[in-house]
């Protein structure tokens, strides 16, 4: 089975920092990156993805601030056991709902049927629970 991967689209309007952080977060949340795992160095990620060092460093810092990574100089980035944060605030939930609505609208506009979208969301949610 292939190991955890991230993928970015250089033509996407979403900034590369955000794409890298989002890609890593998916691997962390879904458990493919486990506590104690070492991530590749900033230099290597930047080189392989064809982006600037600062872009990757910023993504690593974002995830460290969220409590996923431990960044120590000279030791690279290590995945840490993350304490479950307090429940998201009402505003944060509203923000996530808005983003989901936008994504679902985008999928529907591209012709994905509602039943298929619902099945995808259910599969993703079940994946998180397992």
């Amino acid at each position: 089975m292939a190991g955890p991967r991230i993928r970015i689209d250089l033509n996407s309007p979403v900034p590369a920092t955000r794409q890298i952080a989002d890609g890593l977060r998916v691997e962390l949340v879904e458990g493919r990156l486990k506590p104690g795992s070492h991530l590749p160095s900033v230099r290597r990620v930047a080189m392989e993805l064809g982006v600037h060092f600062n872009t990757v460093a910023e993504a690593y810092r974002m995830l460290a601030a969220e409590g996923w990574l431990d960044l120590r100089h000279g030791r690279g980035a290590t995945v840490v056991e993350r304490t479950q944060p307090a429940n998201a605030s009402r505003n944060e939930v509203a923000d996530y709902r808005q983003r989901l609505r936008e994504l679902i609208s985008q999928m529907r506009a591209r012709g994905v049927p509602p039943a298929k979208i619902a099945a995808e969301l259910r599969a993703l949610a079940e994946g998180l629970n397992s």
Partner: protein
Amino acid sequence: MIVMIPLVAHVLMSLIMLALPNMVRREILFGVVVGADFRLSPEGRRAIREFRLAILVPAVAGAMAIVLLGSRFIPLFLLAPGIMMLAGFTTFVLQNRKLRAFAVQPQPLRELELSASSERLPWFVWLGLVPLLLLVTAALYLHAHWDSIPSRYPVHWGLDGNPNRWADRSFRGVYAPLFFGAELIIWFFGFALAIWYGSRRSEPLRRPMVGYVVAAEWTLALTLAGVALGPVVHLPFAVVAVGGVPIIVVSIIYLIKKSNDPRTPVDPPPNECWKGGMIYYNPNDAALFVARRDGIGLTSNMGNPWSWVMLASLPVLIGIGYLVLP
């Protein structure tokens, strides 16, 4: 006979320039990523035809000038191939501009496996240090045969094959070519390491390119050891001049073969970052080397300051070498 070597060199360079459109993958023409069948289209054929014609005219004129006037006007030996190359590169840039209208945007997706595993240098990189031993051996041999070295002997030959610089039997005169070779070989070894660590792991030309640099080190060491040992061993000029060439020729042939291998994705660096189809300038790409679009092998990312440091250090080293040489 004086014109023979420059003529052969001019003809060889002309043939290489004429073959330039065929030295890159089919999806790339004059530095532009196009469809694989674009070469067969009327526009593709016209572009190749115009490029070859722009080379052929100065190539034939230059060859005739070398044969008819070369013996009386030596600078022609450099002028003829120089004009042919200039015509070739100018036409390349013009064709690059024309073909941009047919450009296909390269695959923008990039993927990385999140493993922190380190990567070992290929074994043949260490062969790049052997030429240093070769130069040290030559120095020891010269030291042991010091009394056999003539008091004055040639160390440099002109384009006509005649010696134009001499050295005397002094520490500087005897060992300078070896010192010059050693500093260049150390630079090339550093260059090979920079290629290995400064290009993407997914880059298929990384290994053949490092092999090519190691081969260049061997050619350089054999040539300069030949020059340094010349006064004692009395090697013929032709042996010194071309003795090490087969090594680099083999590595170039391998590099051409690998450069032509199809690859997926076709060519990730975006089109906008290629200046004239030859110069890669992308300050947002951490890679120091990417696959060329104008020929074989890899090229430096000129948007990375380390590329400038690396490229500027070579003329500085050559300058130091010239100051040391007798």
